[in-house]
């Protein structure tokens, strides 16, 4: 077993990650309370994606695990994005 290369996240790093996530949440609520027209949705989705990436990389440990996990998650997200794009091509140009 490869005990020596097992990465153990520190308590401090978890707290820093949580603070980032809380700040981003407050930022989303503030941004969407201002009227930016269609950019509200874009801003909210961009921030949500950043938060999701932080959770995936740090809490779900993808940054420190074997590369295969990162590869698989990226692949699944890519497939999902393709499905979204195809769906909207259908609805926008019907």
């Amino acid at each position, binding site marked *: *077993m490869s*005990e020596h290369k*097992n990465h*153990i*996240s*520190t*308590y401090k790093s*978890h*707290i820093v*990650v*949580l603070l980032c*996530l*809380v700040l981003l*949440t407050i930022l*989303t*609520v503030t941004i*969407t309370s201002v*009227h930016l027209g269609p950019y*509200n*949705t874009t801003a*909210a*989705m961009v*921030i*949500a994606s950043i*938060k*999701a990436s932080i*959770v*995936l990389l*740090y*809490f*779900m*440990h993808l940054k420190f*695990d*074997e590369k*295969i*996990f990162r590869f*698989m*998650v990226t692949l*699944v*997200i890519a497939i*999902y994005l393709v*499905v*979204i794009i195809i*769906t*909207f091509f259908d*609805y926008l140009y019907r």
Partner: protein
Amino acid sequence: MEQSNVAHTDHFDPTASKLGMWLFIFTEILLFGGLFIVYSVYRYKHPVEFHLAHLELDVTIGFINTIILLVSSMTVAMSITAMQLGNKKLSLILLAITLLLALAFLVNKYFEWGAKIHHDIYPGSEFLMSLSKGDMLFFGLYFFMTGLHALHIIVGMVLLSVIFVKVKNGSVIQNRVSLLENGGLYWHLVDLIWIFLFPLFYLIH
């Protein structure tokens, strides 16, 4: 030959068990992903109704629940750290805090849904049926998606409770934290889904 039999009874492969957990998580991502696409398409077709209907939702409760889930995600991650460092007691305390936060989330959800149902807004209610198609779709999706998410919270609580007992009685030990890690992954998934549910239902203008 006899030795290999002994080895088989003590099979432990953390990478494989994590791989299995991730495969399961992918099915969950695509389940909710499909629902998010349904939501986007209907919102694209009924933008005005979706905008007006979302004003009914309480941003404060949604915000509090977001923070609760984020903190609980941290406590479960810390519980794994504690276990890896061999601090069983702290690990158990952090797991218990996670469970309490999950319960707090559900209590909030109960009051939130309760207020909606009190105002006659629930799938199939007479009031909702008298509204436009867009309103019906918004609230239908709201109840279904947050309901399915709440179901995942309950499943996560059962899972974390089982893990709590296993950590307590010594089935999960310092060098074999796979079960705890996989439980943590599931809990982070629940958090991940909420990260998208919150802005889409509560914040969109």
